[in-house]
């Protein structure tokens, strides 16, 4: 086998072990999963904090005020106006105090205002208007009304189905109108369209999800190959690891909990 650094081997093994721990959740919640879960929560939180500090606060704030002097309160810095968000940020920290915590509403309010104001025209353009535009299908582009068969999604028929379907699905979303009579029929059809669409995208996603699992199998396979070089041996090992490894984890867990219960009763 190609010689491998010991530390690399250990890190990979840790990864493989945690992978199996996480898979054990499929059987039931157990100490192995709890371990993996809590470890990843802590580590990822720390990782994220560091990333934000180095790639967020550094360029966005510190570098703006870098050329300022603290005894001028950085007002002489080139990006002095970045004092404002800094102050707002510190206002957030007033939540640590009971009396002052109302101050933190100011930055929150500004945050909300900016977010909401940003969304109004953006979403109106990106979602409503652009979809309207593409719903007004260029009927001159119809090859023929029936196209090359029922499965031809460019035929005029299909385009009309899309159009009707869109409208009736929109009808389903009316809130201030009781679904009765004609309205009921239309919105019912709309609901059918929605359901067919949901089924379609559900079925279409399965493939991608399976390949995610296959990638994990490959990861474990590579790990076994670290130990046993020849492919056959590796795959044999892999088979072991996956099936019996998981069973072993579960068995151990059952025994432990059984022992616990014994202790409790006695």
């Amino acid at each position, binding site marked *: 086998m190609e010689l491998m650094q010991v530390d690399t081997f250990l*890190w990979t093994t840790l*990864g493989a072990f*945690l992978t199996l721990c*996480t898979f054990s959740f*499929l059987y039931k919640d157990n100490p192995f999963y*709890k371990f*993996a879960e809590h470890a*990843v*929560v802590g*580590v990822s*939180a*720390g*990782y*994220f904090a*560091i990333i934000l*500090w*180095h790639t967020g606060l550094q360029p966005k*704030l510190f570098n703006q005020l870098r050329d300022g002097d603290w005894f001028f309160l950085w007002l002489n810095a080139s990006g002095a106006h970045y004092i404002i*968000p*800094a102050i*707002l940020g510190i206002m*957030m*920290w007033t939540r*640590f105090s009971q009396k002052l915590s*109302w101050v933190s509403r*100011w930055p929150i*309010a500004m*945050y909300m205002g*900016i977010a*909401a*104001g940003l969304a*109004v025209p953006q*979403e*109106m353009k990106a*979602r*409503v208007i652009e*979809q309207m535009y593409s719903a007004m299908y260029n009927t001159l582009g119809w090859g023929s009304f029936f196209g090359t068969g029922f*499965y*031809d999604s460019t035929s005029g028929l*299909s385009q009309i*189905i*899309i159009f*009707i*379907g*869109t409208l009736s*699905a929109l009808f*389903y*979303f009316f809130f201030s109108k009781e679904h009765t009579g004609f309205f009921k029929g239309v919105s019912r059809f709309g609901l059918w*369209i*929605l359901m*067919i669409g949901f*089924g*379609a*995208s*559900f*079925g*279409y*996603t399965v493939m991608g*999800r399976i390949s995610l699992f296959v990638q*994990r199998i490959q990861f474990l396979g590579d790990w076994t190959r670290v130990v046993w070089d020849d492919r056959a041996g590796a795959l044999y090992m892999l088979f072991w690891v996956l099936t019996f490894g998981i069973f072993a984890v579960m068995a151990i867990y059952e025994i432990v909990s059984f022992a616990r219960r014994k202790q409790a009763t006695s």
Partner: protein
Amino acid sequence: MKRQIPLMFVFVLGFLMIIQFFIPHEKSEDLASFLLDWIVIIGIFALALGLWSLVRVSWDKVKHRKPNWQYSVITLVGLFIMIFFGFDYFRNFFSAEGLDNYMYVSFYTSIVIPVQATMFSLLAFFIASAAYRAFRARTVLATLLLLSALIIMLRFNPYLGPIGPFCERTSVWLLNVPNLAAKRAIIIGVGLGMVATAFKVILGIERAYLGKD
């Protein structure tokens, strides 16, 4: 005072951003990017609150020996280890050397990445169990859901003879016609709902997030 001023901020900044959208001029662009930096910076400061909350909850468990307190120790250790190495052994805080600190990187690549990838891959199983449990031809709607999903899942099955190509073609049609219609309707509706909600915030009708005096 404690609510009026914040509501005023929301109103003013909200309409400022709306108007900005229609002004391509450089000045308005700069203003917008500055305001967006506010969001980022406020968010970073808020992270301190988040970490504090995480630490407090975990520490609480440990102190009062709540069930599973041992694991909270692991959380805390992981958190502080990462911060320790992320600042390159607390040596340099203001140069990004910590980001490629050996321990920092290894911990991420051999703890966070495997677990996250595995959690993600659990979807392969959950999608199967969900299908097994929920795809029952109880009602018309359920049947439609079931059928369109089945057709698409059969689209490349070689052991069906003539049905295979049929599923192949039908699945394409399903994805391009009903699916498209459904998506389009939902997108339009969601867009309107978003705008309505944003208006409610800007006009101060929704103010639960501002708390009480």
